[in-house]
């Protein structure tokens, strides 16, 4: 009986939204608006000489070594004013929303624990260099669009 209940709950959740690792889509979107959108813009295309574009590219970091770690340690993520749980949720939502096509088939959603240990070592000025290095490793060359 309990299993049926759990299954029912799971199926309800899945019917509402199907983003792995995102418990509350509305909350994730709100956190995006409050903590990211101001600089990255509503469609994640970024701005010239400002926040880099993520649209159609951000999930490619998951395809290269150290890329997954970079996504947590990059200053905007690591220093965001929210709990580890909500930050993990926001990361998963961002990857799915802005770059679903590059999301690896075997992608495991970020968890609060992983985010907590990663954001404990935030990147500072080396973030831009690390980003360019990682982008250079993307299969087929780095994506267009950029920022600094």
């Amino acid at each position: 009986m309990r299993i049926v209940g759990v299954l029912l709950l799971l199926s309800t959740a899945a019917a509402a939204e199907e983003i792995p690792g995102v418990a509350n889509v509305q909350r994730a979107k709100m956190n995006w608006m409050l903590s990211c959108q101001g600089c990255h813009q509503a469609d994640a295309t970024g701005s010239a000489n400002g926040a880099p574009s993520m649209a159609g590219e951000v999930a490619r970091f998951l395809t290269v070594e150290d890329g997954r770690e970079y996504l947590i340690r990059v200053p905007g993520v690591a220093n965001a004013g929210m709990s580890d749980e909500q930050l993990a949720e926001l990361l998963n939502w961002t990857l799915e929303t802005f770059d679903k096509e590059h999301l690896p088939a075997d992608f495991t959603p970020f968890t609060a624990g992983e985010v907590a240990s990663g954001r404990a070592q935030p990147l500072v000025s080396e973030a831009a260099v690390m980003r360019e290095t990682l982008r250079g490793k993307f299969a087929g060359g780095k994506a267009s669009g950029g920022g600094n």
Partner: protein
Amino acid sequence: MKEIDKLGEGLARGLARRNSRRGVLATIGGLITGGAMFPALPVARASSPPGGSGYDGVTPQSTGDPMDPGDPASCDYWRYCGIDGFLCSCCGGTASACPPGTEMSPITWIGTCANPADGVNYIISYNDCCGKPACGRCLCNRNEGERPMTRPQLNNDINWCLGTSTAAYTCSTAVIIGVALKEEGRG
């Protein structure tokens, strides 16, 4: 001398013939009442000290929507809870549109304000308008929810004229971009 006397007498007698004493009283009364009405005329109101924001040429405004209460040309307006700058509503624009000739910055700082009409927290984007000299009217500096410079995305002392063709700051808007959830889980 005699001519002047005659002229004066003629004028006085003529006046007396044409006007009754009651008529003179009525005219004087009319002038006094009419004079008292002058400040109520629209021309007189425009030059009197302004109400509301206290800036010349700025009159109280209304959104016309009971669910969006308050005066967008006043710093007390609910959407301005985190603003720091000149209100575009007083500068030829509105609370969500830039004055003609200026450009809205796509890069903004974003916060939430509670709408007194429904008690809901709305997500507000404080887009700066850029490209003309600073407006200078309706300076509003409330800063509720603002964070220090160490959290630049939540700091409004920054010139947010970024991503625009010019960094000249003109005024600030407060655009509603969404509804915040009730949950308080943000550190």
